[in-house]
């Protein structure tokens, strides 16, 4: 059985030649949650955007392959690629406010995609959306469906987006820091919901986060990203029991709940970062696209 998502040696550069992704390889098996963890600016969002075909124009992929259920995105023409991505993937975004169109009511906004892109009948789409709203524990679907996004709380908006992401039964969901923009009190509920729906639907998730605490709760596999490079890859339990890479250890040390929950948040150890920077600079020196 082929992986749900398979990224092989993906490198991407900015117009000034700076590398944002450095031969990234990672895979997500069907029904599995893979966490992609790293500090802000590591390139987590870039990887998600690359998979979903929405990289900014300034970012260019220079090598590597991305396969969704065995289909190589690079070998498809743009239209077929869009269709494939549209049918098999979905995104749970970071900011639930800007991810909803402010001038359209939630109901039409959610059914529109099922009807216009996937060709469902209006009734089927409507039923489906109501079922999903129920699954994300929205108690008053009538009100929500009639609301504009700004009339809902952040947590409600994220529930709506989770429902929308699962509605068409995608094989893969990219969740890009789906709880970061929310109140702390709501974060846990949302995380639990995503885990619940993931189990019920058997959907594979690439779960992007900067929070190791979240990783422990939701994922079976982890990839640790630093400066666009995967520095460690492991089963989640193995990673916490026995982190291999110095950067992973430093990241854990910087996450208070794994050492002393009352300690203030420490920055990742300077000397570890300096060592990594030197290592990456040396690799960049030697690197040429196609030979990395």
């Amino acid at each position, binding site marked *: 059985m082929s992986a749900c998502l398979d990224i092989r040696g993906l490198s991407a550069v900015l117009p000034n030649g700076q590398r944002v992704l450095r031969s990234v390889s990672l895979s997500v098996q069907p029904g599995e949650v893979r966490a992609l963890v790293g500090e802000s600016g590591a390139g987590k969002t870039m990887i998600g955007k690359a998979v979903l075909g929405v990289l900014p124009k300034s970012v260019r992929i220079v090598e590597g392959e991305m396969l969704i259920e065995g289909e190589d995105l690079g070998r498809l023409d743009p239209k077929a690629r869009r269709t494939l991505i549209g049918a098999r993937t979905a*995104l749970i*975004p970071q900011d639930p406010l800007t991810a909803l*169109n*402010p001038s*359209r009511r939630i109901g039409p906004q959610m059914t529109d995609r099922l009807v216009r892109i996937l060709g469902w009948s209006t009734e089927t789409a409507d039923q489906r959306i109501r079922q999903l709203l129920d699954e994300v524990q929205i108690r008053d679907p009538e009100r929500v469906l009639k609301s*504009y996004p700004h009339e809902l709380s952040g947590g409600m908006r994220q529930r709506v987006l989770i429902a929308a992401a699962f509605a068409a039964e995608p094989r893969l969901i990219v969740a890009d820091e789906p709880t970061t923009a929310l109140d702390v009190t709501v974060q846990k509920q949302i995380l639990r919901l995503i885990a619940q729906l993931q189990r019920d639907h058997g959907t594979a998730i690439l779960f992007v986060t900067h929070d190791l605490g979240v990783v422990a709760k939701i994922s079976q596999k982890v990839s640790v990203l630093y400066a666009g490079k995967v520095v460690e890859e492991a089963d989640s339990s193995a990673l916490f029991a026995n982190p291999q890479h110095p950067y992973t250890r430093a990241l854990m040390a910087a996450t208070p709940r794994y050492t002393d929950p009352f300690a203030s948040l420490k920055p990742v150890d300077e000397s570890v970062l300096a060592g990594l920077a030197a290592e990456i600079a040396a690799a960049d020196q030697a690197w040429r696209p196609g030979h990395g």
Partner: protein
Amino acid sequence: MDEANVARRGLSPRLWLAGGWLLLALLAAIFAPLIAPQDPLAQDLMLERLPPFWLDGAEPGYWLGTDSLGRDLLSRLIFGGRIAFIVAFAAATSACLLGSALGLIAGYFGGWPDRIISRIVDVWMAFPPVLFAILLVAVLGTGLSSVILAIAIIDWTRFCRVIRAEAMSQARMDYVESARIAGYGRVGIMLREVLPNVLPSVVALLSLEMGIAVIVEAILSFVNLSISTDDPTWGSIIAEGRLSIHQAWWVLVFPLITLILTVLSFTQFGEALKARFDPVLR
């Protein structure tokens, strides 16, 4: 929340005052032949420079007095409104359609369409607008349609610039990216996702532009470059009123008040509509 909204919307005095005046003026213009107390072109030297109704020497039936040729001022203002509204609607709508369409394309697509359109706008805006208008009318010939065309040709840039900026900021929003991921085409996203979000600004600008068109038409007829001098227009009435300011101030003051009220109403109405249309402000 809903109740508060309804209350706030129902009580927007700006919307009702401005809309009320515009509706009144519009209806008067449409039904001018039925409403106007006198023939706006009928001269009567026995009735010249009659004062408005509350002053000594006023004649019944000539509510706002007469001009130096004995023509009824109120009737002339009512008929003048016809041309003002025709120009306002036709010119502003044309400028709006052209400018908003180009602005939407430039802002949403960016890249070379944006570079070409923005360059044209820059060149366009280098011309001083009033000179540009006079020049255009001189080239196109006087007449209602050339006045409309001139205003549209000059003022589409106003729409283009604003809508481009708004479309550009909308295009960066995550909902546009989500639509891409879901598989919508670019043109579809532009029309179905981005356009509704810039529409409140389009409406506000459209109303503002109608006010501007009324002024520009008045200026052009003031300098005698608009339509034939027989038909009364607010600008030509003001021009005549200026000549007889010392004998009959009302011939200048009433058309000025009418003009200012109308222009103000258009701008206020636009702002109020925008606030009402915009789901986030609402």
